[in-house]
């Protein structure tokens, strides 16, 4: 079975500061990893995904994530956040045997302050 752990439920940060949102996964087989973002009062939308190849994945809105197989991590980063990045961020995993079902983490609320 697959699982995802997001270690931080809330991350406050000042505008223009860098941010890292942490995600660790547990799986005995190869997995595909996703980050989704949920802006206030909206559904989720895809930020980026890792399927294979380069371990550094670039997504929308200046976000990137690095897949680290040895540490089973897929942390999300942005070098300089904007107030509009305030949202909830979800890490998710899918893998063989599960079809395209996703297992989500519990989410990290990013709050960007002036």
């Amino acid at each position, binding site marked *: 079975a697959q699982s995802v752990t997001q270690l931080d*439920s809330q991350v406050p940060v000042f505008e223009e500061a860098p941010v890292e949102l942490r995600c660790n996964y547990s799986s005995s087989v190869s997995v595909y990893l996703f980050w989704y973002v949920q802006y206030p009062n*909206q*559904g989720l939308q*895809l930020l980026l995904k890792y399927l294979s190849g380069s371990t550094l994945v670039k997504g929308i809105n200046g976000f990137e994530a690095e897949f680290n197989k040895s540490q089973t991590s897929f942390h999300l980063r942005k070098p300089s956040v904007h107030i509009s990045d305030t949202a909830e961020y979800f890490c998710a995993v899918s893998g063989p045997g599960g*079809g*395209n*079902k996703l297992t989500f983490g*519990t989410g990290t609320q990013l709050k960007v302050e002036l």
Partner: protein
Amino acid sequence: DVKVTQSSRYLVKRTGEKVFLECVQDMDHENMFWYRQDPGLGLRLIYFSYDVKMKEKGDIPEGYSVSREKKERFSLILESASTNQTSMYLCATTGGGRVDETQYFGPGTRLLVL
């Protein structure tokens, strides 16, 4: 662009009522999903469907049923609503069954059961 719509943004029901949540997609996608989202728990899969008239249980199906009579529409049914079903309900779709596919989400229905 994929468009996923949900019949209501906010819904208030009484304990014991039968509740229908509707999800419609306009991209001829094969797969549709229902999740519930609760603070600190992330998204949990209730039911999903890979084809018309086909359904499979997710991780938390108890107290729910689904219906998919047409490809574009996937309904979630609460046979007898209870207060512990107060939650945000999110519908999602994917085009096929590959494990690397992006899920497209609707805006969500916030259900309050009194």
